[in-house]
């Protein structure tokens, strides 16, 4: 956080960092690998795009170490669209994050979709002016990321599968753990903080407010308008759609349909209309068929 005395302006404050995520609520953030896809996403009504070299389905198929994208490619996307652009760094790779900050991306995703660079520490996100979004599979993980400075949380799901079951599990887990916390008496919160492996003050804040202090999106396996609407009904503030759009038969139409269903998540007739004639969805992989080492959601802690 910096204060410019002359203009009395404060930049990069927690309020400003978390505030951008507040403005994305009720929206769809789409993975794009080039300027052309970014344009399609913007035209379909995406609230932001995630610039990356390979969508998770391809990272999964091709294997190897997945790293931050080429700055040229990220900049090209930033030049093409006017909506916020996010980009991914590896977990713990603070230099990739420094590079992304120097490119002036609007949000950095410290992401388990890429290969972790540090199996002990995540990035100290307080050091950065640019806000971070981080993945979480449960409340403790979400609170640890917020403690490190994350300004937005997305539940992890299982990226690149088109199987929404893990996303469902993670959002349900986080919501249930928050509800359980709210039901505890004050003297029970000490042990709750210990069990969640999260700071006591933050645990008390969540218990009192009944929600995370930052915006919570869902990611990982969302492929259809119905998937997106279900995540919203389960309490998500918005959705990330990765491989689900550009690995499908008709990306522009599917993207717009998911945007519609995310807004009208409580109106089955709108979701039904949005689901018609979309062509082929991404083929997908069942998470239960994935051997444990290939489950991305188990990266990060």
């Amino acid at each position: 956080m910096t204060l410019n005395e002359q203009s009395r302006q404060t930049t990069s404050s927690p309020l400003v960092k978390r505030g951008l995520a507040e403005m994305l609520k009720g929206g769809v953030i789409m993975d794009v690998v080039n300027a052309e896809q970014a344009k399609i996403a913007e035209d379909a009504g995406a609230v932001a795009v995630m610039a990356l070299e390979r969508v998770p389905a391809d990272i999964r198929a091709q294997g190897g170490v997945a790293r931050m994208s080429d700055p040229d490619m990220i900049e090209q996307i930033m030049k093409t669209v006017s909506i916020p652009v996010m980009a991914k760094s590896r977990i713990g790779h603070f230099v990739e994050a420094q590079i992304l900050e120097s490119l002036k991306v609007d949000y950095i995703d410290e992401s388990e979709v890429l290969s972790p660079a540090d199996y002990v520490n995540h990035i100290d996100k307080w050091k950065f002016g640019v806000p971070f979004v981080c993945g979480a599979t449960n409340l403790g993980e979400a609170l640890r990321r917020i403690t490190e400075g994350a300004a937005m949380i997305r539940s992890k799901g299982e990226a690149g599968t088109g199987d929404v079951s893990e996303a469902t599990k993670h959002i349900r887990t986080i919501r249930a753990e928050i509800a359980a916390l709210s039901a505890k008496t004050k003297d029970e919160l000490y042990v709750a903080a210990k069990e969640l492996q999260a700071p006591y003050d933050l645990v008390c804040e969540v218990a009192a407010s009944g929600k995370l202090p930052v915006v919570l999106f869902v990611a990982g396996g969302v492929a259809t308008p119905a998937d997106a609407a279900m995540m919203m009904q389960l309490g998500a503030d918005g959705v990330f759609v990765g491989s689900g759009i550009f690995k499908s038969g008709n990306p522009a139409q599917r993207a717009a349909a998911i945007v519609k269903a995310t807004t009208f998540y409580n109106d089955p007739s709108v979701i039904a209309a949005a689901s018609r004639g979309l062509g082929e969805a991404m083929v997908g992989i069942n998470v239960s068929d994935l051997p444990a080492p290939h489950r991305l959601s188990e990266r990060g802690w």
Partner: protein
Amino acid sequence: MALPIGVLALQGDFREHAATLDHIGVQHRLVRTVEELESVAGLIIPGGESTTIQKLATMFGLFEPISEKIRNGLPVFGTCAGLILIADRLLDGIEGQSTFGGLDVTVRRNAFGHQSDSFEIDLDFAGLDTPVHAAFIRAPIIESVGPNAVALATLPDGRIVAAGQGNLLGISFHPEVTGEHRIHRLFADLVKRAI
């Protein structure tokens, strides 16, 4: 009984606006359909992504009805993306982006640059006796105010960030996220007078 104030709930921080109205004890309802639009005495257009809100409004047949309501005098309060959407003229919009219009101003979208240039500041606001704490998040600015509108707040460098005209109020920043309730109160009073 007086009709509630509507909060356009297509995308963005509409819940924060609803919570602010709760805080000052003003009845409200979320608006996503033409029927819901028919049942409100005023409309708040929240912060969010202006391109997304405009596309959703068009897809669901709200675009023309909202424009028409504004022309017929419906009180409307827009913050950030909401300001963009009620401006008569828009700079740096995407191809094909249009606005509901009504407020005689020229607005530049995302005028401060990237997220790293977002900021907080205290500003004087016409009609309020102490400064408001304002958060600018990838915010637009009002490049010029036409003869029908008046500027209500400016940055220290003189750039205009709030304007009003009749029943319309448009501001670049987000009172709904900084706990500032007085501008919503001003709007609620405006709605009361319009009935």
